């Protein structure tokens, strides 16, 4: 698996993403600057890390979503290449048109930074093969704009095609209610593209790969990706 992590001005989780990829994959990812026009030859997986690209100016991910490298990322995705967007990376994927919908301000206007349980909706994607279907995992969340919204038609399509990747749940796996941290519609924490080669999610699996920091439930995602190629 050859992975490339894109760095935008204001990205700050690229080191965490790189560490998780290296641990699962046995090889360090390439670090790619946003102003580059091309991905390294042979890239299998592109990771858009978390952070505050361009200081969240205009809208979260809006300016990064239109940077030069995103043309290369779009071409990579169109060929079936894997793309993972975490947190701000998810916002960038929505703003760049690679995923539908938008991430709005959290329902209660607060930045939420805490541990969060998620339900893995399916385990037949390149991102989740190392999990069980409906497995409950505990990862970190840290965002102010994670409130996923889409129009009714898009939402029906996402649900109908099984494109919801993760939903917010409690420890027992009960979805929604008080377990939804941001007001996200249908308790959506992450979604796939139509062909499930692009995943965007608000939570941070890359921060839960070491028992030292409270759990290793995030490892499965990177192990799944490492198992692809």
């Amino acid at each position, binding site marked *: 698996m050859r992975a490339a992590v894109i760095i935008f001005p204001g990205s700050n989780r690229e080191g965490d993403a790189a560490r998780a990829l290296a641990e699962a994959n046995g090889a360090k990812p390439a670090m790619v600057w946003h102003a580059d026009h091309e991905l390294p030859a042979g890239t299998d997986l592109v990771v858009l890390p978390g952070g505050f690209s361009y200081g969240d100016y205009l809208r979260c991910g809006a300016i990064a979503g239109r940077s030069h490298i995103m043309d290369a990322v779009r071409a990579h995705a169109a060929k079936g290449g894997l793309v993972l967007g975490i947190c701000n990376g998810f916002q960038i994927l929505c*703003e760049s048109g690679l995923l539908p919908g938008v991430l709005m301000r959290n329902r209660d206007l607060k930045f939420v930074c805490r541990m969060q349980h998620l339900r893995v909706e399916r385990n037949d994607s390149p991102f989740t093969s190392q999990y069980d279907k409906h497995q409950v995992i505990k990862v970190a969340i840290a965002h102010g704009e994670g409130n996923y*919204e889409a129009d009714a038609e898009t939402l029906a399509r996402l649900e109908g095609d099984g494109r919801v990747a993760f939903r917010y749940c409690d420890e027992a796996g009960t979805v929604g209610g008080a377990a939804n941290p941001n*007001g996200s519609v249908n308790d959506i924490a992450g979604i796939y593209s139509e062909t499930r080669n692009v995943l965007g999610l608000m939570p941070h699996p890359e921060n839960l790969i070491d028992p030292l920091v409270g759990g290793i439930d995030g490892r499965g995602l990177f192990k799944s990706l490492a198992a692809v190629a």
Partner: protein
Amino acid sequence: MKARVIVTLKPGILDPQGKAIEGALKSLDIFGVDSVRQGKVFDIELSIEDRAKAEAALKPACEKLLANMVIENYRIEFPA
């Protein structure tokens, strides 16, 4: 010429910031406030003097970047 682009949330899109501002105005006892929706204003200096050409240049600017057409509407004005 000068142009002003106004970006507003589409009707029906939840606007928690607008709601918070609405609550603050009501708590200040400002009379007659029913609801508040927050938007954005962009004042843009153009090296174009023709209004139709300016609109033709600004339309893609709005749709590609300034507004997220999933949740926002925009309008272009030319202040005197």
